[in-house]
């Protein structure tokens, strides 16, 4: 059994094949798993927001989609991964909240500045991947429920679990 290393909100961790990287309780956040299946290196970022707009912090390298993808790729290459073998799987980006109206019909919550945030993060991650020429090898995004992600670095296997939607393997 491999060691499980937790990647918390806005964190980013890169490691070799002995670890499982996990993010628990993803809502609108997106877990970005980037790996080199040949060199068996991988990293996971727990992304909270789509664009950095110039903001950056060493404390929270995984916070913004654009910076997180760049940083993951850089750190993996530094550790010996080959840029052209990198692959990516992404999970999360749901819309968590609903407003239940008097007619008992559930609607999407129109949260102020964070409206549609899950989808916007997913889009931003894909844009960043495209710019770096990294293929998307798997995706479980959207919906309106929370997810937990376990990323087995040695195999690139990503296991997604949730409360009511069972388990998916990417």
């Amino acid at each position: 059994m491999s060691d499980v290393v937790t990647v918390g909100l806005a964190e980013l961790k890169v490691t070799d094949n002995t670890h499982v990287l996990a993010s628990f309780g993803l809502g609108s956040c997106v877990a970005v798993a980037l790996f080199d299946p040949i060199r068996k290196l991988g990293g996971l970022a727990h992304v909270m927001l789509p664009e950095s707009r110039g903001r950056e912090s060493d404390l929270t390298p995984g916070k913004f989609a654009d910076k997180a993808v760049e940083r993951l790729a850089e750190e993996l290459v530094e550790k010996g991964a080959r840029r052209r073998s990198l692959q990516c799987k992404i999970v999360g980006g749901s819309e968590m909240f609903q407003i239940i109206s008097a007619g008992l019909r559930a609607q999407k919550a129109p949260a102020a500045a964070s409206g549609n945030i899950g989808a916007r993060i997913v889009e931003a991650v894909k844009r960043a991947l495209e710019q770096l020429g990294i293929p998307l090898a798997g995706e479980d995004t959207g919906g309106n429920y929370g997810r937990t992600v376990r990323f087995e670095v040695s195999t690139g296997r990503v296991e997604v679990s949730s409360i009511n939607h069972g388990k998916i393997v990417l």
Partner: protein
Amino acid sequence: MLMSDKEGRSFSELQLDALREVCNICAGNASIALSQLLLKKIDLSVPRATLLPLTGVNDLVGGAEKQVAGIYLHMEGDCGGSILLLIEKESAMTLAGLLIKQGETPSGDQVVCASALQETGSILLGAYLNALGHLTGLYFKPAVPAFALDMAGAIMSYALADLAAAEDFVLAIETDFQVSGQWIGGHMIMFPDFGTMDIITERLGVPIE
């Protein structure tokens, strides 16, 4: 004791005391509303104020995967931030049962339960915000509260997205409540943005340096 984040913002014990006291009164007001709704006594904890890194948020309320009913109120107006009411799933179902008078475990419609819980959350968080407005003389415009029954981490991180855009640390002011004689308990958490904290502590006469 002094708590500070990486930008050197720090809160003295006096300021944290002031924030705790304010939230104590707000939570008290919310608990009176719940008490009137259920015709039962509510016990409240002393509020805890913690400055924690974003990565530490998921340790609140017993772990990111804990199943909770969450009602989220986005604060707008003179000040910004989020207020959350989080109730563990079993507690929430018991509470819904009391509200719609179907006994302890309502087997009925999930949407009806969700609606009852959202309405309760709306009343409680509204009372909380009202007290905050009275105490500080500030105007708060509550947005429509939103509801989710899911993992605590998924709910809290959503509520923190706006705050996280500018900050790596958040201040969480938590109050636990318990409905006397019932297995119903929950948490009220306020995540004020840093501007809000400045304004609140200034109004209370203990400005942040």
